[in-house]
């Protein structure tokens, strides 16, 4: 029943889903931490961090990929250490594709989480303090549940956007079928191949449907969770 896509095309779809999912899982904890620092922190260099977090949004994705290549490549400062200490190679691997995607979608999650952090009444955290809750306790029992809708919708948006990441992935992880050739890369390859128009059209359709589903899901999840928190949907 799945024969309307060839095994190679299915592989690209599966790979895209896997890369996008991994990118969200990698990116979520540091994105929440960065959002928290930006929303609540008062420290020198806050503006610089803010700019750094948002850079991938405005920089050409190819430049992001190139920077990753320079940093995480086998001869890059971080990449060499990773390879030496843990035997981990990111460049030209699925993990590398996930890293590139995570960097690109990082600002999307940070923005969503920060918006919901701004909506959390700091008075509730103060109330938790007077009831004996320390900083981590407060964060996990008060702040995190209250920003959960923002985290979820940010994660789903990042996942949907991550399915389509092209420039950073092809620059850092290259275009290797079965390893780093995600949906957009497969579409690109198809358009470069004589007679590949049908494949390109089918994969483009799949991309479109996946992205749309992601957006609808993010919206529904956000509403559902707001209602669970007893707030009117925004």
């Amino acid at each position: 029943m799945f024969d309307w896509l060839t095994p190679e095309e299915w592989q690209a779809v599966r790979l895209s889903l896997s890369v996008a999912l991994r990118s969200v899982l990698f990116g979520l904890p540091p994105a929440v931490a960065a959002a928290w620092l930006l929303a609540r922190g008062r420290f020198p260099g806050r503006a610089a961090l803010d700019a750094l977090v948002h850079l991938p949004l405005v920089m050409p994705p190819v430049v992001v990929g190139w920077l990753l290549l320079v940093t995480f490549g086998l001869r890059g400062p971080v990449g060499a250490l990773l390879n030496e200490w843990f035997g981990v190679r990111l460049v030209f691997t699925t993990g590398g594709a996930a890293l590139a995607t995570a960097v690109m979608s990082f600002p999307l999650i940070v923005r969503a989480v920060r918006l919901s952090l701004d909506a959390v009444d700091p008075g509730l955290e103060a109330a938790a303090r007077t009831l004996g809750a320390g900083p981590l306790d407060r964060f996990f029992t008060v702040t995190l549940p209250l920003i959960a809708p923002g985290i979820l919708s940010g994660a789903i948006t990042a996942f949907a956007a991550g399915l389509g990441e092209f420039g950073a992935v092809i620059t850092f992880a290259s275009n290797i079928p079965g390893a780093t050739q995600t949906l957009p890369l497969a579409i690109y390859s198809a358009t470069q191949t004589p007679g590949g128009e049908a494949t390109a059209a089918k994969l483009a359709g799949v991309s479109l449907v996946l992205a749309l589903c992601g957006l609808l899901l993010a919206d529904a999840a956000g509403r559902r969770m707001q209602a669970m928190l007893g707030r009117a949907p925004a």
Partner: protein
Amino acid sequence: MLEVALRHDWPGFSLDVGFRAPAAGVTALFGPSGCGKSTILAAVAGLLRPDAGRIALGDAVLFDHAGRRMVPAERRRCGMVFQDARLFPHLSVSGNLRYGLRRAPRGTTGPGFDEVVSLLGIEALLARRPAALSGGEKQRVALGRALLSRPAMLLMDEPLAALDAPRKAEVLPFLARLRQELSIPLLYVTHALEEVDQLADSLVLLAGGRVLASGAVEALAARTDLPMLAGRRDAGALLPCTVLAHDPARQLTRLGFPGGTLSVPLAPAPVGSTQRLRLRARDVAVATEEPRGLSVQNVLPVVLEALEPGAAGEAMLRLRAGPSLLLARVTLDSAHRLSLRPGQPLWALVKSVALAPRGPGA
């Protein structure tokens, strides 16, 4: 004993206060908006670090600028009730109540969950979310949450200010019951004099970031040099009274206070219970001879202690009845006409309608 001394500066406003609150009982911080009341509470709770000062509860030093000591709020064990309740919206009422209970230090004792729930009458609300509660219900839950955290002191920041009159009347009896059962200090921030009358044992009077006066409520209420109290329409003396007897036939209740007795309309309080009365200065008139043929129920022999200037064209009379002090507001003209002078024996005429008991007192 809670000792507070602190100084904190903002652009355009400075707070510099010092006072002591007894180890058990309600200390009201009373003053107009913007006088620094809530800031004091935040500093005691540890939510604000003052520029200088010292805060100690018994032997435990919570903040000491000189000794560089600042106990974090989460380890101060200050149960706090905020004006806006601040219930956790993602937890049920029961979850909110248990939040503090779960974090109470081991070895501390206090009222149990069921006891607090029944004291506050919130059994029916336990499964609900805070969003589904009325303002009065929210404040009762917030009160329960603070109590269950086994606090070493309770701090209340205008807990009734956001409520309308019926909701206030719903929460006040719980506060009154609470103050009789508590054995820890309670700091109560308010700008409503009726809450002071009903709840407070001692009073810290604040204005512009300074303490104007502090002491027992009865003693402060009788002072005529405090415009914030004496200038009000409802200014007057506070008397601790005991219910002596009820006379259903005459629809009267007899109250005794140090220095005399008073008749008031039949009150529901049991005989022997104590009540606190606010005797408003504008409800007290004086006569130089014992009056006869009056509708006024209460005529007390008193001695004029002092004549104080009051509002424009008025004088405030300090009248001594045994150990108690009454205030009477008369026009300057009357004071001249009767040639009132300190030491003169007078008759104080008190309209009994002014004497409706205002809730349990000391």
